[in-house]
């Protein structure tokens, strides 16, 4: 590696940090010049130390973990339900056409509007939060899986068929593989929907733990560093989940875009 290209690569790696530096600079400036009431906007350092001590000595980690578990549980339930149904829907044009509108309608309905209904069905507790989040995620996954299966290129399916593959084999050996990129789109969307709904549920439906509840509590007692710390934790979680799925996609759909 020549020194020039090495330097360029280092420069490229550091580029994303510019935005971060800019944000922190702006924040520090607003804090130092009291542009915003310091009670509402603590310094970046205060927020960071609240985050760090919350993780290391405090109980931020406990809420962090609860939220991760709820999101993961909702996502897992959504996958188990949505992937098989999506495959069935996608492989039959007739079934798909007949329920496309219904799915599309529910997909367009904000999942948070379903809270009261799910509360009646599952009561105030863990199950409602997970059920609504799973519902929202499942619709996104379902739609994408069905779409991926339906729009799989035909030639490889024909190739398998002419080699003697039964329709079921064509589905398993070709169509599902062809739909994987679209399935990953659905999974990424689904997991971020699940996270959003879990956080909202933790805020508003009688929670005693989780990041959402922590943000609400901190706000109510005006512990702003604590609130920023929890918001940052939620953001980091969302980002990490997205990154995880991108890496997983690169690993499992290694042929994508080639």
């Amino acid at each position, binding site marked *: 590696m020549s020194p020039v290209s090495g330097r360029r690569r280092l420069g490229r790696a550091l580029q994303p940090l510019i935005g971060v530096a800019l944000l922190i600079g702006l924040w520090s400036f607003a804090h130092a010049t009291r542009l915003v009431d310091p009670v509402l906007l603590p310094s970046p350092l205060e927020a960071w130390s609240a985050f760090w001590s919350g993780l290391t000595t405090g109980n931020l980690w406990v809420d962090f973990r609860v939220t991760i578990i709820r999101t993961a549980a909702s996502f897992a339930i959504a996958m188990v339900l949505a992937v098989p149904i999506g495959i069935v829907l996608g492989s039959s044009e007739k079934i798909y056409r007949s329920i496309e509108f219904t799915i599309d309608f529910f997909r367009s309905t904000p999942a948070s509007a379903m809270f009261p209904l799910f509360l009646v069905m599952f009561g105030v507790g863990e199950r409602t939060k997970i059920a609504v989040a799973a519902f929202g995620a499942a619709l996104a996954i379902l739609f994408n899986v069905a779409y991926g299966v339906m729009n799989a*290129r035909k*030639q*490889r399916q*024909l*190739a*398998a*068929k*002419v*080699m*003697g*593959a039964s329709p079921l084999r064509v589905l398993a*050996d*070709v169509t599902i*593989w062809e739909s994987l990129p679209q399935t990953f789109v659905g999974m990424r969307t689904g997991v971020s929907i699940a996270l959003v709904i879990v956080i909202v549920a933790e805020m508003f439906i009688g929670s005693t733990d989780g990041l959402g509840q922590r943000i609400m509590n901190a706000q109510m007692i005006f512990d702003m560093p604590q609130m920023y710390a929890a918001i940052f934790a939620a953001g980091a979680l969302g980002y990490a989940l997205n990154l995880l799925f991108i890496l997983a996609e690169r690993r499992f759909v*290694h*042929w994508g875009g*080639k």
Partner: protein
Amino acid sequence: MARLKLLPGGATAPDAPGTVTAEAEKDRFRAFPKGTHITVRGLTKRFEGSTLYDGFDLDIPKGKIVSVFGPNGCGKSTLINMISGILPYDAGEILFDGKDVRETRIGYVFQNYREAVFPWLKAIDNIRYPLKFLKLSRAEADARVDALLASFDVKIDLARYPYQLSGGQQQLVSIMRALVVEPEVLFLDEPFSALDYEMTLFLRDRLQKVLVERKVTTLLVSHDLDEAVELADEVLLLTKKPTRVAARIAYDAPRPRTADTTLTEDFIRVKSESLEIFLREVRK
């Protein structure tokens, strides 16, 4: 010279299939030359009102290479897709030694290899893939793959994924995948038209060698008349829509045929005869 005449009246098969009522119809279904592998009778195909094939009859000899040549859009791909069972047809009957296509081992090589190989499988697993539909032991399967690789004298790293190979190498993988099942019939739809010339010559050469070795009944669609004639035992010329057989020209130069073959008098005669018929059809 002409080894194969069009439906000679005398040749009748003892157990001709089909349950057609009229006697004359029956005869048409029964009559095909000795050594015929594929019989196409009364094949009809329509696309949105326009008729492409109407009562089309064809006999393909066993163990021979037939090149299909004809005007653009005359239905060459449609024909081999119907015969290979990829495309449904509106009427008619296609039999392989009296059997249905589903009872026949078939190999098919697409023009667009990029969308024919499975990019999620390594090259070697692509080649092995169709073997899982045959009931072979692991050892038998391996032996077949090894024999095939030896015939083609493959020098590529088959542990790679298709997208890590060149276009020609991908098409080679796709050809081997079609041949590994030891097909009774092989279909190739313009298999070399997306490849550079050097690769085309190389693949043609290898393919010819293996097909002659194994005596596979082969239908090759080609838009390159030199290629069509060089590889063929017989050139099948088609008309414009509605498509019929314009002519069948036999070519029995010894194999292996090489670039030198294309300089012989016989080759040039067959090629110019084909070209003449082709041009006559195009101008109609």
